[in-house]
């Protein structure tokens, strides 16, 4: 009976077949690290559940049942009910897409602006560099929370405004990192080579400089999603976050904090899920960083 012996090195071979740093390589590498996969599945599961909640669960995320106020976890309500009798589990799953999407969108727009600013500052240097850097200093000297509060105070609370607030406050760190990478890459030969065959500066930046300086940024973005999630929940804690009844985890936590002594389950589950989501995002971020930065692999 022919027994197919699983070739232990098959995976390693498949992995090394891709060009290190290429998208496929990263995807392949991440899928091999167990912890990253655990994190990734957790987030994927949450997102799927979040979109499916209206169909799978009996209770709607807004459905109020004042009789079941503060109900402890029971079969009916695995995570118990909040101060208005709404099922916490449904709200957590439904709210998952808010916290996670806030994290992704704000990091994404922060990274885009950061990269452009950083690249311009790093590559052109001189006046452009000092101007952008000083502007970033001005931005960065604002505490993140304050900038977010000022923005949501100006535009009023709401989902997109929180994303705008978290996004804008993220720009300086990405720009600074991009500039640092550019400075190291700018000096190297292949840039001079590209310049010698008179590529336009724009092409040089886009084609050569950014791809090489991108890997630490992607790692920063993976971590950034986690911290943006936390900023959003801190914003809701201070009362500037998402408007009820959207079940964003930070808002749930801030309303439940008053009941921490009497009904700890209301605080416990949102806090726990924020922690697990941020943990999974960090695990995935770690794997991406290891994939992109071979030196740190083993």
């Amino acid at each position, binding site marked *: 009976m022919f027994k197919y012996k699983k070739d232990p090195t098959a995976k390693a071979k498949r992995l090394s077949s891709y060009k290190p740093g290429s998208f496929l390589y990263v995807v392949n590498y991440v899928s091999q690290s167990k912890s990253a996969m655990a994190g990734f599945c957790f987030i994927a599961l949450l997102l799927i559940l979040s979109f499916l909640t209206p169909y799978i669960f009996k209770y709607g995320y807004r459905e*109020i049942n004042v*009789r079941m*106020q503060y*109900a402890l976890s029971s079969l009916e309500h695995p995570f118990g009910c909040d*101060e208005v009798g709404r099922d916490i589990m449904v709200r957590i799953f439904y709210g998952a897409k808010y916290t996670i999407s806030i994290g992704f969108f704000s990091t994404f727009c922060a990274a885009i602006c950061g990269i452009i600013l950083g690249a311009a500052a790093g590559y052109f240097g001189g006046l452009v560099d000092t101007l952008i850097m000083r502007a970033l200093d001005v931005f960065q000297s604002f505490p993140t929370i304050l900038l977010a509060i000022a923005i949501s*105070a100006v535009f009023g*609370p709401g989902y997109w405004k929180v994303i705008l607030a978290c996004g804008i406050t993220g720009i300086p760190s990405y720009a600074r990192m991009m500039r640092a990478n550019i400075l190291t890459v700018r000096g190297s030969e292949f840039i001079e080579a590209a310049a010698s065959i008179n590529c336009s500066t724009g092409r040089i930046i886009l084609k050569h400089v950014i791809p090489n300086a991108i890997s630490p940024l992607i790692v920063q973005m993976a971590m950034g999603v986690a911290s943006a999630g936390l900023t959003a929940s801190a914003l809701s804690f201070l009362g500037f976050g998402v408007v009820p*009844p959207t079940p964003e985890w930070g808002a749930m936590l801030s309303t439940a904090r008053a009941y921490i002594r009497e009904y700890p389950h209301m605080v416990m589950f949102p806090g726990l899920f924020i922690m697990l989501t941020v943990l999974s995002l960090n695990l995935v971020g770690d794997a991406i960083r290891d994939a992109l930065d071979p030196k740190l692999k083993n």
Partner: protein
Amino acid sequence: MRKSVSKKIMALLLAAMLLITLGACGSSEEPTEGDTQPQETLSLGEQNIGAEGDAAASEQIEYVSYALNSASFDLKPFSSPASGRAQTFQYVWPRLVYLTSYGGSLEEAEMWLAKSVTRVDDVTCDVELYDYIYDNKGNHITAEDVKWSYEMVATVGQSVEVGNLLKEIQILDDYNLRFILNSPGTGKMETVLGFHRMAICDKDWYENATEEELLSDIATAAPYYIKEFVSGSLVVFEAVEDYWQKDESLRGISGSQNVKTIYCPVIAEPSVRAISVENKEVDFTDIQISDLGTFYENGAVKDGYNMLAVGGTTALDLFLNMDEESGSPVATNLKLRQAILYAIDAESCRIAAGLDDSCSWLCYDFGTVQMAGFNEAWKEDYWTYDPDKAKALLEEAGYPDGITLRFMYTSNMSSGMVAVLTENLEAVGIHVEVMGYDQALYNTYKYDSSVWDIIIDNKGGYSLIDNYNNLFSPGGYTNGGVNFCKDQTLYDLVDKGMLTGAQEDYDAIHDRTVELAMGRGLYASATIYVSQDGILDMITNHYMYPMVNAWTYAEDFVSNYKIN
């Protein structure tokens, strides 16, 4: 194989870590099953003193600590009302008359700086001062200082209500004044003479006092002065050595000095305030309803604590936009307004805010049931919750397939209550655009009729008619009443009510507001104070703030506070 073993160990470790944190904060005894039968009613108004009733301390006790709930305040004589200074103001700044109970009249009031008060007619009143009033820095307080103080409170102190009521103050001689009101009305004179934010101080001292002195080294004729003031963190009051009123019998509540030093640390986070009492770090503080369970269980205060629940001065009211020109559909459509009011279940709003009969009351008018002038008859048919009737009214109003309305509130209001309100309206087909703004934005948009259709706000006053006057007096608002309503008959009724103070006039006002369907009162919640068990009697002033200086303490009272 070895790799997966380490994974298992890590998973175990992770789980153990979580259990510890979960265990740490679960309340010690098994939390009661999630039944929601209301706890035993905590009798409001009077105190709920712990078991033992040992003898009261004969002489002044050393010190007591009272945790304050807001950090942004100062105790300068004349400062804007927004800062949270009401809790401790009456220890350090005297006023003419001390009103003993909420809504109480001048006749029952206790004399403080005033020796005697005689009503001349329904707008004028003569006040005679003691002639031996000296503050702790030896300045002599005369009629001229009192008149100047009133002007300062109305302007720098921005206490507009005093400014509106008073026509003029005449100085008869060094120790006699005549107060003349703009218009007669029950309770107006009480408000002026017993004004809870009044501060009477020496004119010369104030004019050349430095910023430092104004803040933490004041000259006052009150029983206590400020020994230490750390802004936003701690205030310490010390009893004045030779208080000017030597005659014990005349001191009463306002002048008593039962405790030598009062330490008032500021603890802004409500759940931490409750913890600091339970943890024996402070003696007394106000707690939020959700922490009630830590000190109060199935009808009795747990031993080791005392409980005081006071309230009824302000109610949570819901208003509908009545400004025809604002373009809001609500303003011009009576049926729509009625549909909204019938769709709201005030009872579940109250429960959702974490309140129940033990610490709150439903409202059957814009004022509270405790306010003087409330008529029990109003309780029968006051917008009883009837979703079907609301749906029918909505169709009659011309919106069979629903309408979207803008609902505004401030983000520090109970989100549970907001959730119930929005669900009630959604259930009958009224979609709600929820606008939860921070305090500053809310205060600005409140007076702008183009921003909101439905608004909820905390309103209150000294009495029912005082509340109506605050809500609907044309003088007070630039664009009609609190909800831009410009109904002349309502204004006339309110003015008449102010004059006569008769119950029929109050009924007429109430019925008019119901007829116009301009809004409704939802509920009013009590403020709950908790203290260690060494305190025997907890007196509060007419605005229900604790008069710590006038309490009776047990013989063996020892404060929990660690002075550092």
